[in-house]
């Protein structure tokens, strides 16, 4: 008998959460990735600078990760 694969019946990749509850986790200035189409549907006009902001955040995160990874290991001993 073949193994059952894939998602369970009724599975949905999305969950509903109130804006307030999400805000508790992310704070008011937290960045949330949303669908461009959905945002435009709401009537929001996406400017070019916003694309850059998102890219900058991703880049900044990557740079921080690289910096964290490349710390020189050392031990400093003070003799009495």
């Amino acid at each position, binding site marked *: 008998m073949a193994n059952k694969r894939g998602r369970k019946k009724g599975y949905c990749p999305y969950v509903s959460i109130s804006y307030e509850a999400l805000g508790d986790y992310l704070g008011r200035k937290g960045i949330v990735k949303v669908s461009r189409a959905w945002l435009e549907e709401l009537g929001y006009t996406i400017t070019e600078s916003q694309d850059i902001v998102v890219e900058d955040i991703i880049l900044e995160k990557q740079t921080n990760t690289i910096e964290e990874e490349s710390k020189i290991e050392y031990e*400093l*001993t003070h003799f009495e």
Partner: protein
Amino acid sequence: MNTNLHTLNRHNRYFPELIGQEAVKKKLSFYLDAFEATKLSPFLCLVGAKGLGKTEFAKAYAKNLHNEDGHGRAFLELNCSTIKNNEQFFEQIFMPIIHDNEVTILFDEAHALPKDLTMAFLTIFNTEKNHKKNFEWDGMNFEFNFKRQTFIFATTESDKIFPPLKDRLTTIDFEPYSRNELAEIIKLCTPNISFSDEVLERISKSVRNNPRNAVMRSKEILLFCASKNQTHFDESSFEELSDAVGILPYGISFTERQILRVLKECGSCSLTTLSAKIGLSTTAIRRDHEMYLLNKSLMEIDGKRKITAEGIRICELEKKS
């Protein structure tokens, strides 16, 4: 006779807690005497197999260096494999810790220094009469003052250090430890435990010529004695400990024992056959396991791999136990 005694006392004064490596102690004591008069130390490069005590000696050497005000000089230990480039070194290490400070710096695993820093060191350590050196990099000037900063390098693979850099360093070679010295280390690390000479000989035989292993074995002995509430460690204690933690004759590993067993079964075989039977790569067998068996004359290579009479004896011993 008196001169020898004087020399020995001087070694003991500088390195009272370290056993063995008399030639290393003698050379380092000479440089420490010179430092007391000149405040200068050569750029040392400690070379030896892993576990021979290079870092311990570097630390002990640094402990004997004093600042101008007489206080002990700080000791900075860096692992070179974590240094990626000049920028990272000057930003994270030189400016905050070395610049304008009195400090001894140990570059451990020096063979792993990045290329650009190796090139910078060629310029920095190219000193003739002056004890100061200014190094310009990326539009900035970094001052090295060798009366305030002492540099030591340590490596297991001196052949991988760029030769012109090696030429600027004073090499200190470490020797293998004798069985008596290893026994001394074990006694030093187990101060409240008594041993018979025979058991000390057996224990020191099991630490693979390596003082670091001797320290680790001592810790096992301390745990054993604490759990049994005893202060004497005899042959039967060693048998019991060996059985509990898996100590094999000559301190060989389980893979090395497997190699001996395969060679005993086959008579002689090629490295490829050995690799197929053991399930390890030929490189791993050659680099990590064969060397110690060859060192202890438990196997030999004469075109093909063969077990020696002593190797066979070890296998038989194992079978009996």
